[in-house]
Every structure is written in structure tokens, then in C-alpha cells.
């Protein structure tokens, strides 16, 4: 499973979106279930799936899927698959 597929599964699972809705440019405001508890769930999921912790500032500052990918790429996780 590629990292993009792992991230897709995680986003679908955490925010209960339809898999068909997923795309990397999805913004936080486009997902009504991306609330404050959702941020916590996403952070826990990223730790479980990719072994990476978000800092509090990173978690709060995420505005969409691209930001999640950007943080993980900065830590050496590739999404060029």
C-alpha cells in the first residue's frame, strides 16, 4: 500500500468521508466533520499510521490534506508514488 493510499484510508476513517470524495486538495472547510476532536483523531491516526507526531502548532495550523502531506514530506515520508 502506498503512502497516499494509507493517508486516504486514514482520512476516510477519521472524518467518515466517502472514499470517492478524497483528493489531495481537499480543504478543512470542505469536510464538516473536521472539528477540534477530528484534529485530535487525525493526529493520533498519523502517529499510528506513519509514526510521526504533529506538534500542537502543526495540528492547529493544518488547513487541508496538502498541509498534512507537506508536514510528513518534511519528515522524510514520500508521497511521490
Amino acid at each position, binding site marked *: 500500500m502506498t503512502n497516499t493510499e494509507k493517508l486516504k484510508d486514514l482520512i476516510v476513517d477519521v472524518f467518515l468521508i*466517502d472514499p470517492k470524495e478524497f483528493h489531495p486538495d481537499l480543504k478543512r472547510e470542505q469536510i464538516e466533520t473536521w472539528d477540534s*476532536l477530528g484534529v485530535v*483523531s487525525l493526529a493520533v491516526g498519523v502517529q499510528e499510521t506513519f509514526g510521526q507526531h504533529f506538534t500542537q502548532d502543526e495540528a492547529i495550523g493544518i488547513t487541508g490534506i496538502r498541509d498534512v502531506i507537506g508536514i510528513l514530506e518534511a519528515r522524510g515520508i514520500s508521497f511521490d508514488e
Partner: protein
Amino acid sequence: MGQTPRSARVPPDPLFVGPTTHWYDTMNLLIEHSSQESLPDLDRHWASAQTFAYAHEKSAAAVPWLRGISEQLPPPYRQHHFCLLTSGSTGAPKLVIGRKENSEELAWVLHAAQHSEPVRETIVALPLTYCYAFVNQWLWSRVMHRKLVLTSGFAKPELFRDALRSARDAMLCLVGPQAALLRNTFGGDRFPGVIRLHFAGGRFPQEQLPALHEMFPNAAIFNNYGCAEALPRLTLRRAEDGESASDIGSPLPGVQLKCGEAGELLFLSQYRCVAQIDDRGFHPLAPEEWIPNGDLVRDDGNGHWRLLGRAGEVFKRYGEKIALPQVLSSVNRQWHGQVACYREKDSAGEDGYVLVLSPQPSSENLQGLMQVFRSSHPRTHWPLRIESAATLPLHSNGKVDSLALQSMENRSLLWRQRI
């Protein structure tokens, strides 16, 4: 029974073989091995002046307790009364004591309120030791001289199906969780001979009404809300007179309801138990004493009352109130199998719950269910986990055994909140 010489009395051991009746000094004990077997004794005990207790054989663990507490029954209660063994969600045994005359009066009230003159027979699918089945099925039939058709319910589905197929102007009483079992076991069958279908004991299966009307095309369907302490009925609602499973309808004649300060249901009833015995001893109830039954309710102001859940089913999670019956109502819009839940805290120590489905849902079913949560409930209302099991553990009365549910093996994890 009161004149039985001591020398003729049957010793109480062994309790679960041989005769179904055991004599104690203060009352008789009748054990229900099967409804068929205990029925003649039950008739005899009801006709007798002496008080009797009636317990299911699955209550074996409580029988020594019964023997111990029987001495606590004061002399005025040793005649003209009956005792049913019940237990709450804690599993602690409790004996509810009713007056025979009052319960017979309730049967007449129910008969009139539910327009049951056309009913000719009662199909029994619940153990008669269960308060609801005892009064709403056995006693009501006895008072009206109806034919009683005994079955073992879903324990022997073929015999149950035969009874339903052979029904002639019949009444059937079930508990809410059995609606899904009906569909899963007899789906596609039609039983036109059943003309009254009653539900009590747990959530009313409002979402299953279209399917139930297909199976029972001639049946009037009723919500028979009540509790063991009420022996057993408090309210009545014809299914079509409300749109929500939580609508329990209006109080029966002779019953008054009120809402306590914490939203708890309190009731006065001419037919309720007159005393209880539990681990703390004998508790007589004064005629004017309002009794709490552990449910939270709201007066809708239109004569109907609304059930918000058991006290333990309404709680706050991250400051937001959750009423599990409302969540289950959403689940049942999408999922037509059995569903149950149990309480659990999350890793942050916040209250939550786990949803258990049976049988295993398809991935499409699960996806549909998740979309219901997404569209109808905030994240705080979502379960901590969704699990599935081949079957749910049930009490002998058909209700889900919540304690066994939490500890049962072979549950599959379908989804979990990452928190």
C-alpha cells in the same frame, strides 16, 4: 396451599428436578422449567389464597437467596399476593410483590384500552416468569378465558413459526430487540392470523414497522411501555400514533406519571407492585408513593410522554449530551439487524459507548452506517468502536444481556475512533 400439612411438604432440594413447586414457610415457590410444564401449577397457585413466587430455572443462582428472604415476607403479604423474580442491569436479584386482585383489574383495563375483544388466543413466545409476559400474556388470557398457545419462541423457531402460521385472531407479545430476530428468522413469511402485536422491554422498533406490517398484515401494533415495578404496564401507544421509537404514548387509566427534578420518571399506579425484597430487605410501598423506574422522560405536552433513555443511557461527552436511544434510532434507520451498545470511557477518561451489530454487516452496510453518523450526529455522538458478533447474548426474556455483551469473546472490530 395454606392447609398443606407440614409433613406433606416437599423438601426444597434438589430445586431443579422433579416437582416444580417447593413449599417454604411463608410462600410457595414455582420454578418455570418450561411454560408448558409449569402452566397447570401456575393456574393452581393463582387460584389459591396463598402467596407464591415464580422464578425461571435460569435463575437457579437466586433460589438460595429466595429461600433466605422468604422469611422476610410479613404475614399480611403471605396471602393473595404473587412474587416475580427480576434483576436490573446490575444482575442483583429483586423480588417484586403484587396483589393478585390488582393485576386482574389491570388485565380488564388493558383489554378495554387495546380494544382486544376480537382476540381469541395468545401466542406465548416469552418466559412466563418475565413480568411483562406473566401479566400481559398469561394473566390477561386467564382473565379473558382465551386459548394460550405455548411456544419456546426463538429457541425453537420452527415451532414458533408453526404457531404463527396456525394463529386464529391471535395476540403476540415480544420485546423490542426481537423485531430484528423476527425479520431475520421469518422474513418473507406472512402471518395474517395475528391481529395484535405488542412490544415492551427495550426500545420500540418504530423503524421496523413497515416490515412488521408486511409480516402481520392484519395486526394492530402497540408500544406497551412499562417496567417490572409497574407489573408491568404504564402507558399505551398504537404504533401509528407516533413517529418516534421514544414516544411511549399516554398513561393507562389508573396510572399517573410525573417527571422528577433530574428528569427521571416517577409513577403512581393502582396495579404496581405493593412491596419489593432485595439485598437490603423488605420494602413495602405506600399507596401514594411515587416510584422511580430508572428511565429519563419528557412530557411532550400533548398527552404523550417521551423516553429519553435509562439514567445510564444519557450522559455527557466532552460537554455534549448524548442520549443513546436517539443514536440507536439513527442506526436503525440504516441497519436492520440487531444492535446493542455498552458504555466505556475513552483514553482521555471521557464517557463513551461501543456499538455492537449482529450479524456481521457488509462493507456497504457499514459505509452507509458511517454516513448516518456523519450526517446526523456530531463526532461526540459517534461510538468509540463499532464491533460485530454472530449473535448477541440475550436474557431469557429476549433482552440483550449488557453485562455479557461487554465480556463476550469473538467480537470483530469494524471501526474505531482514533482518540
